[in-house]
C-alpha cells in the first residue's frame, strides 16, 4: 500500500478514534487522574470494553485465518521499568500518548506542553536506545501469548478473555453507574459538583 493511502486511512480511523475518546470523556484529565486515584472508573470501563471488543474481533479474523496476530515480544524488565515510568507520566500529564491529541483537539492548552514533553521523551529514548538495548532492558523472551502457554487456540483464549471482561464490567457497572462519574461539566470533575465552600458564599446586601 502506498504511504499516501496509509495516511488517508490513518486520518479516517483517527477521526473515529478521537470522536469515541471525546464522547466517552476518557480523554478528560479529571477522568484519567480520577481513575489513578481510584475515584472514577470511566477509564477502566472504556479500556476493558475496547480490549474485549478487540479480542472478539481478532478471535474471528485470526480464527478464520484472515489475519496474522502481531503481538509484541515479552521483555519483562523493559515492560516493568517502562510501564512504571509511563504510568507516572500518565498521572502527571492526566493523559496517555493518544489522548494527549484528543485533549489538544478539545482545546486544553496544557496538552500542548504534554505533547512537546512527549517528543523530547521519545527523542531522549532514541538517543539512548543503542546503549539501552544492550543492557537488561533489551532482554527479550520472544513473542509469548497466554493461549499458547495454556495450549489452547488463540480464538478460544480471546473469547474466554472477552467473557471474563464482560462479567467484570457488569459487576463494575452495578457497583458504580458510569453517569455518576461524569461530573456536572462532563469532565470528571466531581469536586465542583458539591456545594460551594462557605467562604465564597455571597453575603446578602444590607
Amino acid at each position, binding site marked *: 500500500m502506498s504511504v499516501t493511502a496509509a495516511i488517508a486511512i490513518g486520518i479516517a*480511523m483517527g477521526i473515529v478514534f478521537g470522536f469515541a475518546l471525546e464522547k466517552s470523556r476518557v480523554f478528560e484529565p479529571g477522568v484519567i487522574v480520577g481513575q489513578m486515584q481510584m475515584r472514577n472508573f*470511566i477509564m477502566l470501563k*472504556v479500556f476493558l470494553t475496547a480490549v474485549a471488543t478487540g479480542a472478539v474481533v481478532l478471535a474471528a479474523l485470526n480464527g478464520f485465518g484472515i489475519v496474522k496476530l502481531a503481538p509484541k515480544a515479552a521483555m519483562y524488565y*523493559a515492560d516493568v521499568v517502562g510501564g512504571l515510568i509511563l504510568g507516572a507520566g*500518565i498521572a502527571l500529564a492526566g493523559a496517555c500518548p493518544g489522548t494527549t491529541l484528543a485533549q489538544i483537539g478539545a482545546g486544553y492548552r496544557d496538552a500542548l506542553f504534554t505533547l512537546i514533553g512527549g517528543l523530547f521523551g521519545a527523542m531522549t529514548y532514541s538517543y539512548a536506545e*543503542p546503549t539501552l538495548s544492550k543492557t537488561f532492558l533489551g532482554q527479550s523472551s520472544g513473542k509469548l501469548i*497466554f493461549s499458547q502457554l495454556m495450549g489452547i487456540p488463540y480464538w478460544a483464549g480471546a473469547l474466554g478473555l472477552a467473557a471474563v471482561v464482560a462479567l467484570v464490567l457488569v459487576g463494575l457497572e452495578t457497583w458504580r453507574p458510569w453517569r455518576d462519574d461524569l461530573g456536572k461539566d462532563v469532565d470528571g470533575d466531581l469536586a465542583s459538583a458539591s456545594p460551594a465552600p462557605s467562604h465564597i458564599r455571597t453575603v446578602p446586601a444590607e
Partner: protein
Amino acid sequence: MLSQKAWSPYAAGIVIGLLQIPAFLLIETALGASSSYVTVGGLLASWLDPSVVKIDYVAKHIAATGKNWWQVALVVGVAIGAFVSMRISGASRAAISPIWRNALGSASPAKRYAVAFVGGFLMLLGARIADGCTSGHGLSGMAQLSVGSTVAVAAMFVGGIATAMLLLRRV
C-alpha cells in the same frame, strides 16, 4: 447521537475496539500511538542534528513506510475527531481542566504547564522503553493475549496509581 456530550463508556469502547478491524486488514498492524512520537520527534531532531538518522531505531521510525505514517495520521485524526465531536455537542473547555487546581494545589498555569511537560516526557520515555503505551500494549496487546503487554499494563497502573496517590492531591 453525534451531538450528545457523553456516550456510555461501553458504546465508545466498542467503537474503539472495532478499529482493530481496519488496522489489521488494511495496515497489517494493531492500534498504537506512541511510535508516532519517535517518527515526528526523529524528523524534527534530524533538522537540528542530521546524524540522528544514523541511529537505526530512528531510521526505522522515520522511514517513509505506510505503518509509520499511518500512525502519525491516526493521532492527527484523533485531534480532529475530538475537535469535531466537541463542536457538534456545543461543549467548550477552559485552557486547563478545573481538576488541576485541586490536584496541584495551585491555580498557576505555569506550574501546570511545567507538570504537563514533565508528564509528557516521562510518558513517552516509559512507553518507548516498554515498546508500547495504553494503546499498543493496553488495547492491542491485551486483546492479543500478549504476556509482555499484560505485564506492561499492570506496571503502568501501578506507576500511575502510586504517582496520583503520592504526588497529586485528591481531585
